[in-house]
């Protein structure tokens, strides 16, 4: 507290409040608990998790990888529940909680999980677990300067780091791929990033989302609070998304070109996606001047009363789907007020989703051809540099064609590999091909594949004879043909030879709960 901020924006504001801060500081010092007391308090809030998990083998989607264990933290909140990040309990086969440095472990289960916002609530059913533990209060606001206290259990010892606040900025949450504000700190922890709680005095200010060297990124209290409240209400935890393509509006020539005869401000809308919240309200080449009562500057920031300049997307991150917000745009030579209802756009509605919601990969092995839905989980089998290392055509699908363009569009289907057999000779090296049609039927889900393989192409005598698999246009192979007459027998033989427990896993039934209000341009 009270440490001068190096951020010019915050420095000015903090000067105004300095006397208040000093008063607060004095009060805190006066009654501040000693270190021992602080330790006790954190022992009551923070628990250690040991999570055994087993991810799906995305290359062989019928199988699972070797189980492994991750150690992480959770924090006790009112309920009582344990709050942690979704990534921590992803693909968990056993979650064990440890409290107060005891050797005893307690089995926990997931009560609620949201991979997008990357948070989860877990529960230990034995009431005795919570004896000696106390729910923490989630802070209303997070410190903009000074430090926060980060805490974790390390070999049953409580490890405490005074983590120095550096910035608050809006970023993409890497696990869930949604945007909101993060608190960035410098921490003393070695290899953190596993949901270590941070406190401002007695209050929880966040859970660590990731850490690189000593720079940690913390999911702030506001996001935790929203999540916990929504779960308690039983309402959706989805974050609304505008789903806009936009660009900075710093260029006075461009604003003049658009007829806006003032200093550049607001951002320039390039495209409004059909699935997004702003669809049919905002338009391409609108200048978005205000959102939800906040002015947007020419690089897309608004002035948060406490945190300074934040990207405007944060304005919807804390609102709920269904809420109506107002916007002010410059269009057709004049400023106009518009409003729209916020919609969630879960990753699951993308044509190439980023995450799969802890569900197993849908696939079909037909005649030894391994088909699966293309998603981020599969792309990440090429490692953290998958954008460069994955086959170019697949990365392009994610980046350029990853959004649905029709309300009924579902997944891109990839023929990921071939299980070699005499039946599929000639195709043993075929891999990573986007499949558009089977037997003339357009394919955009594993269900489609299943029904298309039931309708073989006929030969000259009108007898069912061929399965024809057609790929997205490419310079390598247009289509491949299999014998439909021996298809069932060969599929069974291949499944047996390669030890497939099942040749198909269809996806969960998906009824998009949001409507496309307009077709994408």
């Amino acid at each position, binding site marked *: 507290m009270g440490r001068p901020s190096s951020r010019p924006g915050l420095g000015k504001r903090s000067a105004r409040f300095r006397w208040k801060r000093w008063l607060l500081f004095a009060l805190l010092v006066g009654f501040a608990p000693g270190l021992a007391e602080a330790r006790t308090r954190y022992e009551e809030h923070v628990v250690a998790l040991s999570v055994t998990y087993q991810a799906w083998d995305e290359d062989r989607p019928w199988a699972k990888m070797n189980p492994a264990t991750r150690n992480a933290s959770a924090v006790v909140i009112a309920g009582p529940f344990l709050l942690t990040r979704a990534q921590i309990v992803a693909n968990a086969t056993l979650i064990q909680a440890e409290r107060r440095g005891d050797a005893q472990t307690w089995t926990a289960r997931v009560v609620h999980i949201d991979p997008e916002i990357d948070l989860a609530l877990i529960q230990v059913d034995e009431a005795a677990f919570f004896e000696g533990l106390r729910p923490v209060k989630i802070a209303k606001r997070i410190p903009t300067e000074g430090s926060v206290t980060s805490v974790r259990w390390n070999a049953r010892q409580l490890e405490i780091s005074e983590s120095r606040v550096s910035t608050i900025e809006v970023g993409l949450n890497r696990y869930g791929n949604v945007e909101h504000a993060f608190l960035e700190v410098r921490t003393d922890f070695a290899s953190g990033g596993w949901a270590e709680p941070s406190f401002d005095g007695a209050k929880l200010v966040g859970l660590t989302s990731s850490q690189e060297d000593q720079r940690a990124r913390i999911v702030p209290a506001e996001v935790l609070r929203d999540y916990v409240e929504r779960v308690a209400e039983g309402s959706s935890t989805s974050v609304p998304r505008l789903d806009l*393509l936009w*660009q*900075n*509006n*710093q*260029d*006075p*020539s*461009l604003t*003049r*070109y658009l007829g806006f005869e003032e200093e550049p401000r607001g951002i*320039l809308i*390039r*495209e409004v996606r059909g699935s997004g919240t702003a669809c049919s309200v905002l338009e*391409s080449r609108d200048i978005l001047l205000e959102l939800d009562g906040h002015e947007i500057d020419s690089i897309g920031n608004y002035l948060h009363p406490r945190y300074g300049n934040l990207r405007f997307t944060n304005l919807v991150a804390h609102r709920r789907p269904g809420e109506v917000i107002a916007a002010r745009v410059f269009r057709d030579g004049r400023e106009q007020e518009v409003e729209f209802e916020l919609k969630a756009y879960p990753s699951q509605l993308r044509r190439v989703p980023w995450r799969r919601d802890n569900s197993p990969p849908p696939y079909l092995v037909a005649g030894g051809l391994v088909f699966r839905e293309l998603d981020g989980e599969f792309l990440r089998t090429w490692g953290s540099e998958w*954008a*460069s*290392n994955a086959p*170019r*055509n697949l*990365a*392009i699908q994610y*980046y*350029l064609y990853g959004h649905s363009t029709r309300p009924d569009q579902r997944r891109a289907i990839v023929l990921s590999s071939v299980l070699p057999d005499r039946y*599929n*000779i*000639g*195709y043993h*090296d*075929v891999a990573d091909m986007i499949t558009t049609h089977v037997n003339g039927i357009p394919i955009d889900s594993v269900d489609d594949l299943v029904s298309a393989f039931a309708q073989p*192409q006929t*030969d000259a005598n009108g007898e069912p*004879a*061929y*399965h*024809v698999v057609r790929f*997205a*246009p*490419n*310079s*390598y*192979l*247009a*289509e*491949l*043909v*299999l*014998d*439909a007459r021996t298809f069932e027998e060969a599929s069974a033989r291949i499944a047996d030879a390669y030890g497939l427990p099942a040749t198909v896993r269809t996806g969960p039934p998906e009824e998009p709960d949001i409507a496309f209000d307009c077709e994408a341009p």
Partner: protein
Amino acid sequence: MGGLADMQSNAGKLTGGTRIGAFLVCLALALGSAVLADADNRIEASIVRILTHAQPGSAYAPWNSSAPQQSVGSGFIVEDGLVMTNAHVVSDTRALFLYLSGDPTPHEAKVRWVAHDCDLALIEPLEAGLLDGKPALQFGELPLLGSAVETYGYPSGGQRISSTRGVVSRVEMNLFSHSGLDYHLAVQTDAAINPGNSGGPVLQNGRVVGVAFQAATGLENVGYFIPPSVVRHFLEDVEDGNYDGYPALGATTATLENPAARSRSGMREDESGIRVDFVFPQSSADGLLEPGDVILGVDGYPVSNDGTIMEGDLRLHFGVLLDRHQVGSPLELRVLRAAERLTVKVPMQAYAPLRRYANRYDDLPRYYIYAGLVFVPLNREMLETFGEDWASVADKHLLNEYFERFMADPDRILREPVVLLRRLDHPANVSLAWYRNLLVERVNGREIHRLEDVIAAIEENRDEFHLLEFGYYKRFGVIEREAADEAHLQVLESYGVPVDRRL
């Protein structure tokens, strides 16, 4: 399976440069390699050392010339006072010298013919009669597998000729890494082929059976030489005073090893062949072949289901037959189409749109600079500005435009996509939100199909603004015309750009 390279060179798949496992054997600067003490004088007298000072263009600063690079290669005297060597030995040369055996005097030379698609060149000394009395080497035939050959040349920069002996270990279609696109017949040998050997002859019984040109990286003792058939194709091509290059069929094909695929294509049990998957617009095959056709035979050779033919004892990719054709000569295909067996004569033509996938030499890069905005065609050298692994790390929308998009919309291959490469900062352009590596879709409302369209759209515009619209992400920007016109010359001057365009 087929591939883009099928088109040009009839084998393999276009990889975009990252998987090419060969290095060019030019650039000889290190020491090593024993000097052959008792080289045959007659042969030695026919072999020259070539010193070049090359100055390739600069893709990222296309108005600039790069620093000259000196390198050494080999060559040998053929008829008519000419010296044969590799194209890559003389590419982008600004000063070329040859050294005769045992003569320390540099003799200036010039390039008479260069064939970048098969890595061959003919050069001649400026001094008339210099080679008179020097024995010209004669060409032999493709050496047998397992037979012994000798390579001659000046590896590793030595002043004295060196020769090494090896055997012919393999004959097959191979990527010629100088162009990075073309496949031709090449002979693999374990005779040492090192930097500096490039362009040197490979001899058997006193006759030239190949021209050393590249070596495999990551493999021990795997060198390649260009066989007599490819050399003769080059010599015949230039007889009319023009180098036209290899013609291209203009189709991608798929192998048909699977019986179901053959049956569905209507082939009888006793037939074999490959399927046409894609026909390039305005190529040799356009209008003559159709997707779904089966090519049963080429020039009288039956084509196997894996796309190979038998030539003597060798099983080779059918592309070797296409390679026998010069531009203008008809290829005869036996084709199965809709249960009919036809003979299709394809007059073979070169296919220019594919050259954007090859490395470019000698011609300096095309560009247009307006008010500091640098526009260039989307081609291999542009993408190589992303670095060695450009084929994976370059912007996805550029890779998509370059490799994939025309497959769904074939006429796009006939266009020259244009990229806003970069900006030379000036107050008139510095406010632009986007100015780097962007596919230019429209300028002032005009669709851009080649670099000249950008120039026309800019120069013909009389509005207050120039409007630039970019592909894929709907990015756009404007510059004020009068301010930009005024900035135009200032930018050229302050950034040392001699001229605003090279077309």
